[in-house]
């Protein structure tokens, strides 16, 4: 029961933040909530092990991202999400900046949204992002550089074009 209390605390403390992050990646609160709830449901089954992790939220984030990955499953998930989660939570009217960022993120590639959200919203370091996405830190740096430039272009800023050939760096 003590485990339940610990899990409950972890879940309630982390849920909203992970939903917000996933929302930044998938662009739908319902889809984000459904994937995050499923990730926490799975985490509840493994809590004995996850509780010993340095960052159990990284596990939940990774599983939620995986669950939201398959574009083939997204349509059916939208329907299932609506059934399970219900209508979207009432969110305050969006500010102009928020709408712009939402639209700009929607025009980026998925892996670019992932690194931007994990870095600027989840506040993860490059090394932490590499662990969550299970890719080399060099790749994270490359993606972050390109994603940031792409986002600035979408937002109408002066994002520099990435240097040809200077893209995703792979570790030897």
């Amino acid at each position: 029961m003590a485990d339940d209390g610990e899990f409950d605390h972890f879940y309630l403390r982390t849920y909203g933040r992970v939903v917000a992050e996933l929302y930044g990646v998938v662009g739908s609160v319902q889809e984000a909530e459904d994937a995050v709830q499923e990730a926490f449901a799975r985490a509840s089954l493994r809590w004995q092990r996850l509780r010993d992790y340095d960052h159990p939220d990284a596990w939940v984030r990774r599983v939620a991202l995986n669950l939201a990955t398959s574009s083939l499953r997204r349509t059916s998930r939208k329907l299932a999400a609506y059934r399970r989660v219900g209508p979207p939570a009432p969110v305050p009217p969006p500010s102009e900046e928020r709408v712009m960022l939402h639209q700009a993120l929607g025009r980026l590639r998925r892996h670019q949204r992932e690194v931007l959200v994990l870095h600027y919203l989840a506040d993860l370091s490059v090394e932490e992002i590499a662990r969550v996405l299970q890719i080399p830190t060099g790749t994270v740096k490359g993606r972050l550089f390109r994603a940031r430039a792409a986002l600035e272009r979408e937002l109408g800023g002066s994002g520099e074009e990435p240097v040809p050939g200077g893209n995703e760096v792979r570790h030897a």
Partner: protein
Amino acid sequence: MRDDELRRLFQMFGDPVADAVNPPTPAQIRHRGQRRRRRVALASTMAVLIVAAAGVGVVQARNLSRTSPTHPGPEPAVTSASVPLTTSPPAPPTSGATGQATTATTLPLGTVGELHAIQFLSATQGWAAGRGAILVTSDGGQHWGRQYGGNANLLTIDFFDARHGWAVATDPAPTLLGTSDAGQHWRALGEPSGGTLGKVHFDTASQGFGVAARNSSPRDTRLVATGDGGATWRWLPTPSGAGAGTVVSDVCFSHPGDGWLVTSSSTGAGGTVWRSAGASSGLTIAWHRSYQLNTGGDPVTGAQLQCAGPGSAWVQVAGGGAAGHIAYVLLNTRNGGTTWKAVLVNQFTWRLLFPGVPDGPGSYPGPFSAVSPTAAFALGSTPPAGDLLSGMLATAGATPGPARKVPALSAMRTPQGVSFVSATAGWVAGTDSTGHGVILATTDGGQSWKAQLS
């Protein structure tokens, strides 16, 4: 746009969502988890029942074809197409000498192709693995049965105890199989994201480590770990101070916290043995350098590692080739890595690095089996002499036994497997010149061998 501006923008984007969502109660989430567990269990049960029914059908059909006087055709070979991943329902357990053997094989042995790995936990209980096969015995190899007949070409097998085992294949697809019932049922487990497992080693029934090739590149192998029996894997950092381009070759643990890791540099010279540094946090291991092999510029091409009890390990490091030889050295420690002793070496190649150390068996290195902190049985081959395979008992602190021929195995079809449970009792698995699997057993430390599986 500055970093802090972007961060503020993202916070403005995410905060309202985080604040507005109305999470289900924790009880609802746990209930959802329980529902999922029941669904998965039901699906697994249904799958096992369906596969088992198919397996019974296959076995019955084979029995019929063997006994029918009007259909005296040859005994059908077991092929990947006809044999399910899991065996049919377990037969009543048979007791081995250890009292915990639970082998109940229901698949016919059929034709056995290449064998690559073998592991005995006792003088009676053992498994062998190869192309489309996991074989099991509970009487020291007098009788072998088949537990798996899929299409995976299994290269390694690792049993933590008499019930929990894992087998790794890299072709035709990366595959990790696992069992928790002594091999009566094998199920497919996970692979690291973006990588291919090459070998695994478990120090508990659920916690294990492995070596995986990143993007399937043999020159980029790294350490991975699992805490759930192999269902999921995560990449672990290479030891700090190992340098860029470090290739992880092998890992083993005598028990949690008592582990070893061997790495080499992808740029060539040098190999390093690392020792786990005391307590670890979950699967995060702190390593410190225990032994550095400086080869003076010669390349290090691979290494094998085996734990041999608390604070004891054996390491075989292989180097480059020259004039029909491949350099290798077998090293041993019995004091937690404080000192290392070279026990065997290929004197043709690395005699200057290890003067006076006894010559190993064969001009090419082969697999070895740690028997105890002070003894290991090493195999080696000599391609210029018709792929002669020979083996010898290496003893730390004493003169090793003479290299003796291991008959009837083709050394070209590597890797062979070797497993010794004492200084006298051991088994070697491999392939004969016709491509059939062979298991040889010795009870006198490798002086004489008797073929099994025939």
